């Protein structure tokens, strides 16, 4: 589904990832962990094509991201829901409009979509904030909204970068639950996090694999967690 083939990534200076090959199979659940600055966000950006690999290839649904034109990449992203670490909203639109944005772009909102939107807002605990502007939200509220936007288009893959970084443990579990349910429905999930407790909580419910970035490589973590 999404695959890194011998990818080396550097931002001008020394390489952050060297000759990395990983496959994300359909329906799999991956955690991505590693120290701050190791390159978790960088790896996720490769997976949705915001970054193109310095060397090697990233296959998105069978096509190398390096070979995609802008519009083709845009269409591919409709199949990938992304929670960015810095959330990224349109600051002049309300929360509800931001969450509905991917659907609006893909076409008109159906009544069923509106119902889904309302349900989703309740699930992430933001129903009472739906008219607020992104700038008026707390960090945790923004993260929840970003997750809601990512799942709104019913994507095949969900990439979440620290979606629980700013929320309390109870809310973190709730968001995790949402991702686990989506995984059970067949979605592919990649979740970057520092939070080992979250990983442990997930492992009791789904078969999750843990990838750790260390020494510019992506390693499969053992059962030590």
């Amino acid at each position: 589904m999404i695959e890194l083939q011998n990818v080396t990534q550097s931002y001008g200076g020394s390489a952050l990832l060297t000759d990395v090959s990983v496959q994300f199979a359909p329906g799999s659940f991956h955690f991505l962990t590693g120290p701050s600055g190791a390159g978790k966000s960088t790896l996720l950006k490769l997976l949705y094509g915001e970054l193109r690999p310095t060397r090697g290839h990233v296959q998105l649904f069978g096509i190398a991201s390096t070979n995609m034109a802008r519009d083709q990449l845009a269409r591919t992203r409709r199949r990938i829901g992304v929670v960015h670490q810095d959330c990224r909203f349109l600051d002049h639109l309300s929360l509800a409009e931001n969450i509905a944005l991917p659907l609006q772009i893909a076409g008109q909102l159906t009544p069923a979509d509106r119902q889904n939107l309302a349900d989703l807002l309740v699930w992430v605990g933001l129903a009472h904030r739906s008219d607020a502007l992104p700038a008026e939200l707390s960090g945790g509220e923004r993260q929840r909204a970003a997750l809601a936007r990512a799942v709104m288009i019913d994507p095949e893959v969900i990439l979440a970068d620290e979606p629980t970084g700013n929320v309390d443990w109870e809310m973190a579990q709730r968001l995790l639950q949402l991702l686990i349910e989506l995984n059970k429905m067949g979605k592919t999930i990649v979740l970057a996090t520092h939070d080992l407790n979250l990983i442990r909580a997930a492992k009791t419910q789904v078969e999750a694999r843990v990838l750790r970035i260390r020494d510019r490589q992506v390693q499969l973590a053992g059962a030590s967690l």
Partner: protein
Amino acid sequence: MTSLLDFLRGSQGDGRFVPPSKLTGRLTLAAAAAMSFLAVFALVLTMAAHRQAALWGQTLAGTATVRIASPHEPEQVQAALVILETTTGVNAARILSEDEHAALLAPWLGPDLPLQDLPLPSLIEVELSPDGIDTLGLNLRLQAEVPSATFDDHSRWRAPLIDAAKRMRNLGWAALGLTFATLAVMVALSTQSALASNKQEIDVLHLVGAEDRFIARAFVWRFTGRAVAGALLGTGLGIIATLLLPNDPAAGSFLTALPPNGLGWLVPFLVVPLVAAVAYLATRVTVMRLLKETTL
């Protein structure tokens, strides 16, 4: 009504996907208003020049004059009249009366002229048929029988006047073209600056799956809306200013008959859709080109 206002603000339709940018929006509105105002004048001038060219062409083309330089010799005048009446291409020929002479000269020499004391030429007004006349043949016959007579079909007067009116008209079209070209450049520059200041929003739209066409549409809505608002303002003011121009066709001068007449008044309103079209194209071309240059 609210949706019309939304449209003029550019926040209707896909326009709301880019934030309203106050500065570039106002600049576009002001530029469109100024250019529309100028375009209305260019149009009014062009139309007036058109009318004038046609008028001069018509009124002077149908007539000619025969001047008999020897004063007070009625036989000569009669002889010329006979020749004229037997010439093909002449519909009618008529000796100008003394009163008419006086009227012609009054603007220069004042009324109450003792005409009979002046060595004035006699004038015969000739009405020509539209089929034309053999000027050379007529001149030869006149020379033979009435040597002091000269035939004048006004072409000497007509040609430079019509030429001037035509040049005026072409200048009008050029001014109109330049006005719209300038508007296109201004809108393109505003679009470019809006694009630069909205880079974040463009990236977000692209990240959640918007193709370039969609992003372009958002900007096109914004700018076309603002441009139409400006065009309405500028065209309105231009038409009011045109109404205030002197309008007295009877005074016979180009400058006193500038405003259009009848259905001609509808023409200046065309400026609004033209501005909309120019703004639409300028925005769309600019956005698509700049997005294409963006890597990723």
